[in-house]
C-alpha cells in the first residue's frame, strides 16, 4: 500500500546524520513501504532540512506497533514537563 498520507510538521531542533549534527526544520510522518526494515509497511519518520539538501535527513522505519508505543512514551515523558512542552 502506498498510502500517500504524509503528515508534516515544522520542528525546531537538531538531528544527527551521517555527516554529524544539523538543524532539523521539518518532520514527515508516514505509513508506507520501508526501505530497510523487514516489514511490508512501517511507520516512517524523516527529520529534514530541505534548505541544506535531501541528504540532510535522519530517517527511522518502525514496526507500526512500536511506533504507537513510541508516541505514547513521548507523551508520557513530556507530561512530566508539560509546562515546557506547551511553551
Amino acid at each position, binding site marked *: *500500500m*502506498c*498510502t*500517500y*498520507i*504524509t*503528515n*508534516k510538521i515544522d520542528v525546531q531542533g537538531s538531528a544527527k546524520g551521517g555527516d554529524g549534527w544539523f538543524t532539523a526544520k*521539518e518532520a*514527515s510522518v*508516514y505509513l*508506507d*513501504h520501508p*526501505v530497510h526494515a*523487514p*516489514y*511490508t509497511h512501517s511507520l516512517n519518520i*524523516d527529520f*529534514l532540512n*530541505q534548505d541544506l*539538501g*535531501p*541528504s540532510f*535527513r535522519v*530517517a527511522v522505519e518502525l514496526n507500526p506497533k512500536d511506533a504507537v508505543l513510541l508516541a505514547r512514551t513521548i507523551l508520557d515523558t513530556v507530561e512530566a514537563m508539560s509546562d515546557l512542552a506547551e511553551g
Partner: protein
Amino acid sequence: MTKYDAIMAETVYFSGANGDLIEGYFARPMGPGPFGSVVVIHHMPGYDQGTKEIVRKFAANGYLALMPNLYYREAPDAEPDDAAAAARAKGGVPDDRLVGDVEGVSKFLKSQANSNLKVGVIGYCSGGRQTFLAACSLKLDAAVDCYGAFVVSDPPEGAPLKVRSLMGIAPNLSAPLLGLFGKEDSFPSPEEVKILDDELTKLGKEHEFHIYDGAGHAFFASHRPSYRVEAANDGWEKIWAFYGKHLS
C-alpha cells in the same frame, strides 16, 4: 552454438518536461533489433536498485528500457531513499511534469537506431497510476499498470500529494492496458479495480485485468516481504505475452 546473450545498462540523460535534463537508467539488448521499447516508472520509494533490476530484465528479454528518475529535480545527487523523502516532503511529482518526462523518455527510446518505434509503459505502485495517466495523455502502444492506486478515487482527505482520480481522462486512454493487482491490496482495492474494469469496458477500451489471490500490494518487489512468487511469475508471463503482442 549458444546464443550470445548480452545487454548494456547505464545512466543516461534525456530531455524531460519543460526541456529539463533528467537522469535515467537505460538498458538495452546488444543487437540490431529492431526492438520494442518500455518506459519503466519507478515506485514511490524511488529510483532504486530494485527497479533498476526490472529495467535490466526488460533488456534481457529483448526491449529497450529506460527508467526516468522522477525525483531528479528535487534531489539530483542524493541516495534514492533520501530523494524519495525530499519529493514526498515537497508534495510529490506533479502530473503534468510526469507526462512531460514520459514523453521525453518515449522520444529518447524512439531515437535509438535499434528501435522499432513502438513504446509501452509500465509502472509500479504510484507508478501504476502514473502509467494510466501517461497512457491517457500521450500516444503510446501498450500500458501495464501494476497495482496503481488513486486511479478511480481521490487520495484520502488531507493527503499532501497533489494527485487526483483519473477517471475523467479514461476516455483518452490511447493504448491497450494490462492491469495486475493483488486481491489483498487496499490501494487499490479489488472493488476499485472492478470499477475501472467496468468503466473501460463501457468506453470500449481494450484492457485485460488480473487480480491475484494471496497477493497484496507490491507483489513484484522481490526484495521486500510483500513479494509473492506465484503472482509475480504469472504477472511476468502476462507482461511478456502482452508486450510481445503490442510492441513487436
